[in-house]
């Protein structure tokens, strides 16, 4: 059965960016939010340590210092005009969250409490600054809950457990809606809209060890890619230094912010050698590489692929009040009390710096020259503004999603007021229905879980923290074979109701397509910058590679174009911490 709906603004994804966008879009347009989960299950809720803004509540701080740190952290690949907007607007948006009721921790005087975080400094790199506003180590949970609460207060319309499978563009290329699969019934729904905002999050499930939820399968960017739109800077994916060994579950950088120390098998504080000034609070790409190099040098704990994160000297009070959730993860999954014993950690695939290219109002770009798709917006991890460049600073993902979620929501509402309804294309639900039918009927050779596991281990070994041409090429070749195999999967569940079996197969196809784009973009970039670290091209090469990658799919092949970085404030310099 096919259902049709008409809403001026359609938001896809109900994490922090989607909810913030919905709050603003709904003030000026009839708005619906679609999510394949329930809003409160979104991955924003797992963000822990804090959200950065130069409030200066504890140390002198300025937005321009936050801007500098973000640009330097990005290894000079971020667009500086966008970074400047984010860091300037961060301050007021934090106050706005407080006004919405977000329960920030407080200083003794009752102001919003702040703590140090990796790469955040005062006076252009001089010393660590307390900038990360926090609510224990569940800041993301509080943001997600608070934004959802406000959506309830303002009667925002939700379609929970609706999985979007296609994006509809009008004949002249305007965004006109989406096709969604109602998980409970298996029915298709056509949502006709004027403005469309994608806020579907990341795709860390490409890798074996990841902090990301099972549901982070990159549906948004994959759908955009399938529509011929480009994805920007996909070779830059952040590995967070401190995932729980083997499981990938995140241990917040707040542990190091509170004074935690990384140690190798000799008990040495090895970050002193890699980042003499900021040490354990250097930016994430630097710390993750250091851990890999220690392990390679046989300095891993017991010769294994992990090191220790030591919080035993912080005292029980700090561990139990400021790092409560991380402590709980250690007790639950490792049987370890971090106030007494060090935590075994290894880098874990964490955050997509790349994604759907947008300008500072969230408008999606259709090519490297910056022309936009009218009516189409993206915000949050799915988008690449770019404010994170080649490496994101801790706390800036939350800053990004509230600042640019708000900007996209406002821009979408204004667009709705200024524009008429664009016509839906001739075919709306038919291609999706045909695809679903094909998958259901297929008596295929392959099992989705096997293919997924192989992709994850390939990408971990060859397109992870360190990369070589040979490794990336071999992964790319095999990913392309796996894409073929993924067309030949048997869906075991033949029912209509709550068929998560077929959805997992579709999600796998999305992941494989994004793995291909990631590997192809990484193969082409012959330099090391931020999270993209090539052993065969160890230096950053500003002369040839101070550029954004735009990857699109043309006739089944990945086509790469490049666009200049917007450098308006700080000229690239050597990056040391």
């Amino acid at each position, binding site marked *: 059965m096919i259902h049709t709906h008409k809403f001026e603004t359609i938001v896809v994804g109900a994490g922090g960016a989607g909810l913030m966008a919905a709050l603003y879009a709904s003030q000026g347009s009839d708005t619906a939010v679609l999510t394949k*989960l329930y809003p409160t299950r979104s991955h924003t809720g797992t963000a822990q340590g804090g959200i950065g803004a130069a409030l200066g509540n504890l140390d002198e701080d300025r937005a321009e210092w936050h801007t500098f740190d973000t640009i330097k952290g990005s290894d000079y690949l971020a667009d500086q005009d966008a970074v400047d907007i984010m860091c300037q607007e961060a301050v007021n948006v934090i*106050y706005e969250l407080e*006004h919405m*009721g977000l329960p920030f921790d407080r200083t003794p005087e*009752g102001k919003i409490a702040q703590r140090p975080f990796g790469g955040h400094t005062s006076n252009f790199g001089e010393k660590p600054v307390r900038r990360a506003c926090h*609510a224990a180590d569940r800041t993301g949970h509080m943001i997600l809950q608070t934004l959802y609460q406000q959506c309830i207060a303002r009667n925002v319309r939700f379609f929970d457990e609706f999985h979007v499978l296609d994006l509809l563009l009008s004949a002249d290329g305007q965004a006109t809606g989406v096709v969604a699969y109602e998980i409970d019934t298996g029915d298709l729904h056509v949502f006709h809209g004027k403005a469309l905002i994608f806020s579907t999050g990341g795709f860390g499930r490409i890798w074996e060890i990841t902090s990301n939820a099972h549901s982070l399968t990159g549906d948004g960017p994959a759908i955009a890619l399938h529509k011929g739109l480009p994805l920007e800077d996909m070779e830059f994916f952040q590995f967070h230094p401190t995932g729980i060994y083997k499981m990938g579950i995140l241990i917040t950088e707040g542990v190091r912010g509170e004074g935690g120390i990384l140690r190798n098998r000799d008990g040495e504080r090895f970050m002193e050698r890699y980042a003499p000034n900021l040490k354990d609070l250097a930016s994430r790409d630097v710390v993750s590489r250091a851990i890999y190099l220690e392990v390679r040098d046989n300095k891993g704990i017991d010769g294994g692929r992990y090191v220790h994160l030591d919080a035993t000297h912080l005292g029980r009070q700090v561990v139990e009040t400021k790092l409560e959730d991380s402590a709980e993860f250690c007790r639950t999954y490792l049987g370890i009390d971090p106030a007494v014993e060090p935590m075994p950690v290894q880098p874990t695939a964490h955050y997509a710096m790349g994604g759907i290219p947008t300008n500072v109002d969230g408008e999606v770009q259709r090519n490297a020259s910056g022309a936009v798709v009218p009516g189409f917006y993206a915000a949050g991890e799915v988008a690449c503004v770019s404010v994170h460049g080649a490496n994101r600073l801790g706390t800036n993902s939350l800053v990004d999603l509230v600042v640019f979620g708000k900007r996209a929501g406002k821009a979408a509402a204004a667009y709705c007021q200024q524009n008429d309804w664009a016509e839906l294309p001739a075919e709306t639900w038919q291609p999706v229905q045909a695809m679903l039918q094909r998958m259901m009927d297929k008596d295929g050779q392959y099992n989705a879980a096997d293919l997924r596991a192989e992709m994850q281990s390939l990408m971990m070994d060859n397109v992870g923290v360190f990369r070589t041409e040979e490794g990336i090429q071999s992964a790319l070749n095999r990913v392309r074979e796996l894409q073929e195999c993924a067309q030949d999967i048997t869906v075991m569940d033949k*029912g209509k109701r709550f068929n*998560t*079996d077929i959805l997992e197969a579709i999600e796998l196809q999305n992941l494989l397509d994004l793995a291909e784009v990631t590997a192809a973009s990484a193969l082409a970039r012959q330099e090391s910058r931020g999270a993209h670290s090539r052993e065969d091209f160890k230096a950053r090469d500003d002369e040839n590679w101070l550029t954004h990658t735009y990857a699109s799919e043309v006739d089944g092949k990945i086509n790469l174009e490049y666009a200049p970085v917007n450098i308006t404030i700080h000229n690239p310099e050597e990056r040391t911490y």
Partner: protein
Amino acid sequence: MRIKMRIRRFNPEADSKPWWGEYWVDVEESDRVLDALHQVKWYQDGALTLRRSCAHGICGSDAMVINGRNALACKVLMQDVGDVCQVEPLRNMPLIKDLVVDMEPFFAKYRAVLPYLINDNLPASGERYQSQEARARYDDTTKCILCAACTTSCPSFWANEDYIGPAAIVQAHRFIFDDRDDAADLRLRVLNDVDGVWRCRTVFNCVQACPREIDVTRAIGEVKLALLNGLEE
């Protein structure tokens, strides 16, 4: 180690009533029940249906009954389940399929307590201040992830599904005791209803069930006291 999974199955398109499916899985001691369920779904029967997302106890998707007790499947380790791991959907909720229940009645009760800060007196600029003591007053109940483990473990809720339930009271508590909020009276009125807070018989099942270790019964007790004595200033 090899463990038998005993899973309550129900396919609304084929079954007239639920039945038990039995499956053997090979797991590590440190694997989660969620991993074992995935092993069944991914390699034995793709039709096995459950909700899950973050897999580390934060998103609240995978609350279910494991060996008779409410828990998140991603927070129970296989080393702790014994020889047979029995898994059922949450009790007293409309069953959709296998381990998936209809959450809408649960969220309707959540919405009924006005779960958002109500205060029209905002400072002209900057933040409102809140003392550390005032912030600590409602800290425990900010941890709630709306997984429904508490409400569906409560015998009062089993007996009367109109009971608003511990989760909604926890959510109300989070605002009633936040000194920035002005609408405690409105929420207390909702909770003073015949199906409100007084249906709690302090059985403490909710405390045992809560995967976030919220002291749920204490929170409910504080709401009862606020109704009897008024809010402390």
